[in-house]
């Protein structure tokens, strides 16, 4: 499976440099022993040769996604251009650092724009078997509260909450 994200210990994400080819990528490094887990292992490397192959893969992906959601807390950062412009990269770095510092096991992943530009950067937390909660206008200084309060102990950080997802 093609996952270009964590080659080495760096995650590269392009900025949204306008008209500039040269400076269009920015690098931040993930702390040592990072807890950033990409879901590389979900589905084995396969080539789908028939309709049945795809059906099987879909079932497997569904099961694995569901299993993952009951197994491990997920932290999802909105990393669209608007989120990044509002500081999502700094928030992502703070999350990784905080998880690492506290040695908390959680899956950190990203998603695109959900539409609430006014409330970017947005961070979602989903604990196993619980609802996915969205926090808005998250600053790096808010991250410790979200990690210790919600990720670690399940206490929703009320003043930052925006909404919760209905379905898992």
């Amino acid at each position, binding site marked *: 499976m093609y*996952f270009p994200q964590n080659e080495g210990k760096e995650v590269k994400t392009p900025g*949204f440099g306008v008209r500039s080819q040269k400076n269009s990528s920015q690098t931040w490094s993930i702390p040592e022993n990072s807890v950033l887990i990409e879901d590389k292992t979900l589905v084995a490397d396969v080539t789908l040769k028939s309709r049945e192959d795809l059906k099987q*893969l879909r079932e497997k992906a569904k099961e694995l*996604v569901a299993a993952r959601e009951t197994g491990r807390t997920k932290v999802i950062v909105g990393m669209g251009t608007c989120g990044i412009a509002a500081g999502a990269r700094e928030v992502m770095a703070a999350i990784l650092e905080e998880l690492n510092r506290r040695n908390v096991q959680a899956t950190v992943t990203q*998603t695109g*724009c959900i*539409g609430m530009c006014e409330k970017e950067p947005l961070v979602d937390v989903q604990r196993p078997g619980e609802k996915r909660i969205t926090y808005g206008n998250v600053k790096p200084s808010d991250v410790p509260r979200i990690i*210790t309060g919600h990720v670690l102990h399940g*206490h929703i950080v009320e003043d930052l909450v925006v909404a919760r997802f209905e379905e898992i």
Partner: protein
Amino acid sequence: MQLVRAHVLVCGGTSCTSSGSKQVQEVFQKELEKHKLEQEVKIVETGCHGFCEMGPLVIIYPEGTFYVRVTPEDVPELVEEHLLKGRIVNRLLYKAPVTEEQIPTYKEIAFYRKQLRVALRNCGSINPENIQEYIARGGYEGLEKVLFEMSPEDVIAEVKRSGLRGRGGGGFPTGLKWEFCRRSPGDLKYLICNADEGDPGAFMDRSVLEGDPHSVIEGMTIAAYGIGCREGYIYVRAEYPLAIKRLKIAIAQAEELGLLGENILGSGFSFDLHIKEGAGAFVCGEETALMASIEGRRGMPRVRPPFPAQRGLWDKPSNINNVETYANVSVIILRGADWFAGMGTEKSKGTKVFALTGKINNTGLVEVPMGITLREIIFEIGGGIVGDKQFKGVQIGGPSGGCIPVELIDTPIDYESLIAAGAMMGSGGLVVMDETTCMVDLARFFLNFTQSESCGKCTPCREGTKRMLEILTRICEGKGVPEDIDTLERLGRVIKGTALCGLGNTAPNPVLSTLRYFRHEYEAHIMDKRCPAHACSALLVFTIDEEKCIGCGRCLKACPVGAISGAKKEPHKIDPEKCIKCGTCFEKCRQNAILRL
């Protein structure tokens, strides 16, 4: 190794220590010894939990019970109740301020209540760089259905029946477009996705590409099967590097799984997809210009007919749709044309994504069913106007669109109603304006944009927009003459009727629609040399109200050009000859003695 039945975690962070966690720990040790539990229960000193205002913190495992503000006096009770009797000491428990149920769901917050997410169905919930998450949510199920259960004709018939129309602005029925291309003679046909979203204030397509690239890839593959294309291009603005990166990853993942390329899923159908990066030219959003750009030429439009469906990219029949259109396709196939046609109005089916910006509280990206009114979008989803300013109008459709005034705020959003109101759906930029926005200045802004983006091929657009811009600039500077309004209208109509491509045809719209609804503002600029919104600085006059002025000297000191004079504690004066109308004195005055006329 010795097994313990419970762990008592006492926070040893700086803050908890200063509020007495050390003593708590000591008392715990004593109490455990007293009850002979020291072998069974282990005390662990932990680092800071970040909940310092609740310290000292004690957490007892295996239950993970979280006690806050524990004093040494509380410890005997904790040991006796919790560790001996297994009863939780409720009074020391941390009370979570909210529970899940108390938090509104997305559907319950105003911003989402009236939204209906079809094209944006996965945006913001899946990881766009992981095809498995897309597949787990029913991705590529539409493609599967098409390849094994439907003929190409079925696909086109289904899309036609759904009533889907082009989301890039024109609103041409998508199924019909596909049919034209399918019927064009020739073996080699190209499929193109227009992701050259250039309208200022519009970022719908970018969000789809960044948030859910596979929905576009799947939609394109379905279209390619329906039309009979073997190869496709996605033309993305170079200004969207993140979208390009996510698309590249998505295409590579789809190729690896065999969802793009040769003999997809063993069906015998093959389709290859390439990315073409634009190079910064707004006119390339026009389909013939876009194709010229893919071919490596200057992106200039050409005369139609022949239409791209007859002769397009490299002179082969080509089909071109925009990002949002393709993003709708797989859902239509999967849930059926009837489901899709059940949303929206008689002639405009489904949903439309808008970028909501300007003087509005909730800026952002919204997807609403067709037929919803502007009032619902602006005041319910958008949360109304920033501050307590007066809502003046909304600019819809970017440089090709027009302004809709407050009187028409109950206009339903569909292709026909918007055109009747002098605007157009456009790609979906919605810019909200309040009383401080000058409509003449806004028209000038858009014309300045289209004028500088005009490719220069046809005279009406090249010369006409230039002349219109000159007139508008003149009006904003207070040098307008009464004939200007007629000249603008006449020029606008001529350009609209004679320009070569969509850019020129629609360029006068912002001027014509503001002339239609806000003519009084043009007249105020021309006749009274006054800008009602106080936005055109050349037309402002600053004076001092001598009754209110206390002669504090704040404005005098702040004036960058020394246009204000006056003795201390005496009313000051502004020299109109020297004044550059920067507005600094207006902002500095605490007595409201500066008048802006």
